[in-house]
């Protein structure tokens, strides 16, 4: 099979920012929903007014993830915001734990 060819874009650099309407279109969610996500800190765009909002590329995934969780687990907005915050914190702690474990393993192996 001939592979499809894709360019993978690192969102940290090449990723451009999205307008609120682009986020709605790509994620297939209503404007009200995106606004409510911003109000509860689930999304943090740059800019002050709705028309000036610019969302980083990660917001696309965050929006989908948030609306999936909200729908599938029947979460209200404060509960959703809390769940997402805790998930992010757990992910960070897991990374740190993995790194520390790997460093300790190196210490004991070399010793």
């Amino acid at each position, binding site marked *: 099979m001939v592979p499809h060819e894709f360019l993978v874009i690192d969102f940290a*650099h090449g990723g451009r920012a999205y307008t609120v309407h682009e986020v709605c279109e790509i994620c297939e969610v209503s404007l009200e929903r995106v606004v409510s996500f911003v109000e509860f800190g689930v999304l943090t765009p740059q800019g002050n007014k709705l028309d000036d909002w610019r969302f980083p590329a990660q917001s696309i995934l965050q929006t989908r993830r948030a609306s999936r969780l909200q729908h599938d687990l029947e979460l209200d907005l404060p509960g959703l915001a809390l769940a997402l915050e805790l998930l992010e914190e757990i992910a960070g702690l897991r990374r740190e734990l993995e790194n520390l474990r790997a460093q300790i393993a190196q210490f004991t192996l070399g010793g």
Partner: protein
Amino acid sequence: MRFVDYYEVMGIAPEATPEEIKKAYRKLARKYHPDVSKVAHAEEKFKQLGEAYEALKDPTRRAEYDELRRYGGRSNEEFTPPPGWQPRGGQGVDPRHAAQFSDFFAEIFGRDGAPDGRRASADWPGEDIHYSVQVTLEEAQSGGTRTISLASQPNLAGETSPPKVLKVTIPQGIQAGRQIRLKGQGQPGLGSGRPGDLFLHVEYAPHRLFTVDKRDLTLVLPITPWEAILGAAVTIPTLTGSVKLTIPPNSQAARKLRLGGKGLAGDPPGDLYVVLQIVVPDTPTARERELLNTLAQESQFNPRAALGDL
């Protein structure tokens, strides 16, 4: 076509009340939700749960299903519906579940849970696919290309579609935790529904020498006790070749030295942290022992002063 025991999937008794079904669904949904769960095969289990719930929550569908179960359906056994079987319908199903239904569900209830669903009267967007790509630190440092083969997840009836082969360009300095969206490369939609998207999640493969936090690397560097005391100039590895490092005199074990900009490529590049590990020889030579004995006799250093008089 294999028979699927939805009661087994949900872990409930066949005589469970609608309330119990709902409760079991909520509990398992939290446990297996792919956005939350660290359980193995969570995504697959969540899809199976969604299908089971759609079959059992609607009284009409549940009655139909119970009838088939009595007719002789056994979990995982080959199953053919009775001759002349017609889906009777029921409430519409959640479109997010519908695209994932097994042929078993579609055969019994119709693809979208409606009696004529088998003819795919409905248009639903396809499901997104999530896939983790392990990138080595060397690849992340220099960039590169990679061919990945995506095997589709089997549904409840064990059906899979052929693997999708993708050639992926990994840009220099890509960070773990980044997600890449490939539009339209997910599961096909139903009817004229658009296909889902494919998301690649970048992870770093474990490295023999370095651990990584964002763009910063950490290297555990073994040194001798006398290098720790006297200081030394040593050669250490980085991702882009070896560099000289000066170990300052009187360095304690686990001292952390920072080499700015020697971490992963990027704007700005990460730093390289070197953690000193003092290693003693397994079998010191006679001469080494002799010299150390002289040191032991003459040294006044007491590392246990803080423990008090013993």
